[in-house]
Structures are given as structure tokens and as C-alpha cells.
């Protein structure tokens, strides 16, 4: 089984399922090129009207026979999964749909404790799929309410303080990047877009294959040449057997110091024992991350 945790929401799926589309607030999973599961979510303030959302779904999918159903009308395994998930405080309303070719089983969910509202649907082609769908549904987890939030995607995982919000990401062959942003205060986080104003940018990167990238060069030199943004020359890098680490103030002047606009940087990079990759974590911004918090994030960053 593989656990995908993305932007605070997690789902454990069969090994063969893999993401074919990934957004900030959702993903589509496929099995051998065929869609099997779609999960979307957002955060809502206040109460959540299930009937309204299911009605909207029905309206948006004209030509699809879609309807909200009670748990008694769903397969037994599905009803059990819904009951199990309800024990964690999540409220669910199931729905079914069918076209001439496909049919599906899904649920609209709301977690009153965190405000998470989600829609999950499974593409069903045989009764055996209903069992897998139900088992997968029961593994759904809302991590958004914790002090720290895990993430796990494309074979990598990490954990970071909940104040860091997902900003951008890209998973290109050879180079994965996931950027998070922590605004100076929650008030500013609501006003300014991610990456604007005072705050800290936290970036997790994975480069592969390390055996090719590091041929004829040392890790610290490779980082100076290839990492974007390049670690500032004024910030010394310390190399050890474990890897390379750097910390300091990248941009400093008396004026910046007076205005508290100094740019603090921290970074760690290491070559993994397995997976033939280079993992890099950097924190950059005018709100420094404590050494302990940064080390914790680096330690959590690993191959699954």
C-alpha cells in the first residue's frame, strides 16, 4: 500500500495506483492508465450544506445519472467504511453515478473540526473494485488540524510546521520541487499571496540520478553551480560525511538590518544511501527558521 499525503489530506491506496494529475487541492489516481480515484478538497468556513453540494454535482454533470444516496443503498463494504470514517468526526454523504460505460461511487465529506470539505469518487468496473474503493475510502485522513503536517508524494515524504502553506510544486523527471511559504503572521497570510511580503520560503528538492550529476564534482561545488537559487557566496558551506549544510544572512546591509529586511538562509543537502538521489532543503526569508525546527524538517525528508 502507498500513502499519498498532499496539502494536509492523505489517502492510502493499492501499490499500482499512481497520481496522473496533481493540483494544490486534489489529485487523480490511475491504475495502468485508467482513472480509479479522484480526490478534491477545499477549506470552508462555518457550516457545510451536503444537499446543496450534491445538487450542484448533479447539475454540473448533465448526461450522467448521478444521485445522492443513503448508506443503506450503498454496498455493504462501502457503508462500513463510511461508518469507520465517521468515528473520526468526519461527516460523509455518499453518492453514486453511472454513464453508459462507467459507474462510480463517491462521497462528499466535511470535517467540522478543521473546515475541510472534500469530494472523493472511485471509478468502478467490477464488484471487486467496490471493496478496494471502500478500503481506500476508510484510509482518508485529514492532517490539516495538526501542529505539524506531513506530506508524501512520488516516493518522497516530509513533515513541516502547519504554518507553512503549499505554494508551488513541480515533478519533472530528474528534478522534483515542492515550495512552501510561511507568512510573518496569520493576518498577513490571508491578505497577501504566498511568497509576497515578510515570510519564509521553504523548498524541498530532489535531484536524480546522483551518480550522474555528481560525476567529477563534489556536492558543495555542484550546489554552488546548479542550485537555484544559488546559495549566496557570503554564506559558507560546511561539508561533512553526512552532506553539506549552510546558514547565514545572504543579503545584509545596515539599512536592511535597520529595516529588518535581512535575508536569512539555511540549507542542507545530502546524497541518499538508497535511491541514488540528492535531497536538498532550503529556507530563505526575512523571518528566520530556528536551527532545531529546520533540522527536524530535514530529518523528516526521506524516501518512502
Amino acid at each position, binding site marked *: 500500500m502507498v500513502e499519498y499525503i498532499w496539502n494536509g489530506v492523505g489517502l492510502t491506496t493499492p501499490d499500482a495506483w499512481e497520481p496522473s494529475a496533481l493540483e494544490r487541492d486534489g489529485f487523480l489516481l490511475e491504475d495502468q492508465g485508467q482513472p480509479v480515484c479522484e480526490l478534491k478538497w477545499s477549506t470552508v468556513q462555518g457550516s457545510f450544506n451536503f444537499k446543496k453540494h450534491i445538487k450542484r454535482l448533479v447539475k454540473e454533470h448533465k448526461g450522467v445519472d448521478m444521485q445522492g444516496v443513503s448508506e443503506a443503498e450503498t454496498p455493504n463494504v462501502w457503508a462500513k467504511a463510511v461508518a469507520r470514517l465517521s468515528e473520526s468526526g468526519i461527516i460523509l454523504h455518499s453518492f453514486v453515478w453511472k454513464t453508459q460505460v462507467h459507474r462510480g461511487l463517491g462521497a462528499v465529506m466535511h470535517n467540522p473540526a478543521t473546515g475541510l470539505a472534500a469530494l472523493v469518487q472511485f471509478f468502478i468496473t467490477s464488484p471487486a473494485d467496490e471493496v478496494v474503493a471502500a478500503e481506500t475510502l476508510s484510509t482518508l485522513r485529514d492532517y490539516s488540524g495538526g501542529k505539524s503536517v506531513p506530506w508524501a508524494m512520488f516516493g518522497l515524504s516530509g513533515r513541516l510546521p502547519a504554518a507553512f502553506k503549499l505554494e508551488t510544486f513541480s*515533478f*519533472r*523527471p530528474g528534478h522534483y520541487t515542492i515550495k512552501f511559504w510561511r507568512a510573518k503572521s496569520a493576518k498577513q497570510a490571508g491578505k497577501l499571496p504566498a511568497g509576497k511580503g515578510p515570510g519564509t520560503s521553504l523548498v524541498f528538492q530532489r535531484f*536524480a*540520478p546522483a*551518480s*550522474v550529476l555528481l560525476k567529477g564534482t563534489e556536492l558543495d561545488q555542484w550546489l554552488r553551480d546548479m542550485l537555484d537559487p544559488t546559495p549566496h557566496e557570503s554564506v559558507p558551506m560546511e561539508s561533512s560525511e553526512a552532506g553539506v549544510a549552510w546558514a547565514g544572512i545572504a543579503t545584509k546591509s545596515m539599512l536592511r538590518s535597520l529595516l529588518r529586511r535581512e535575508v536569512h538562509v539555511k540549507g542542507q543537502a545530502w546524497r541518499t544511501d538508497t*535511491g541514488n538521489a540528492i535531497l536538498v532543503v532550503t529556507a530563505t526569508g526575512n523571518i528566520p527558521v530556528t536551527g532545531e525546527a529546520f533540522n527536524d524538517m530535514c530529518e523528516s525528508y526521506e524516501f518512502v
Partner: protein
Amino acid sequence: MVPVRNTKVVESVDDDDLIQLAYPLAIKPWFGSLAEKVGLWDKRPMIKHLELDEMGTFVWRAINGENSVRQIAAIFVAHYEVQPREAELSVTAFIKTIGQRGMIGLK
């Protein structure tokens, strides 16, 4: 799909064990006749050269007329320990590129 090398592609190996490929450039007939008329081309095949990096060399060597694209991606995964999905994307993109240059065909 099984990629097959174009027999007209000439392979050489440099000191770093990286492959350089020399392949005849496919010239569009209208361009060929025009170039010939104005004296820019004497009908001899134009040869282009392509230097492969380590991973390109590895994939080129795996193209033996028997391995399918999927098998080449699997060999790539086993050798470089990258994820299957990114190996498939990389290998497919490479094969597409050299296929567009006429260096391989697919059977």
C-alpha cells in the same frame, strides 16, 4: 513498441565512453531541388552529429531491436534507481527525439 536503430547511423565512442552518433539528415525534396539548383547542394547526403550524455549513451546501448520502450525504461530504473514513472517519461522523450531525427524506427 520496439525501437530499432537506423543502420545508416554511425556510432563512435569517445574517451569518456560516451557515444557520438553520425546520421544522414533527411532533406525535404522541394528544399533539396532548390538547393541543388542554386548550387548549394551536390546531392551528397548531409551528415549531422549528435553527442550523447551518459544517460543517452545508456539508452542508446539498450536499443538493440529486441527491448521494448517499456523494457528499456525498466532497465533504466534498475541502473539509475529513479522512479518508474520518471524513467518512462525520460526514455520516451529521448526515443521520440531521436526518432524524429530518423535515427531509429519503431516496430
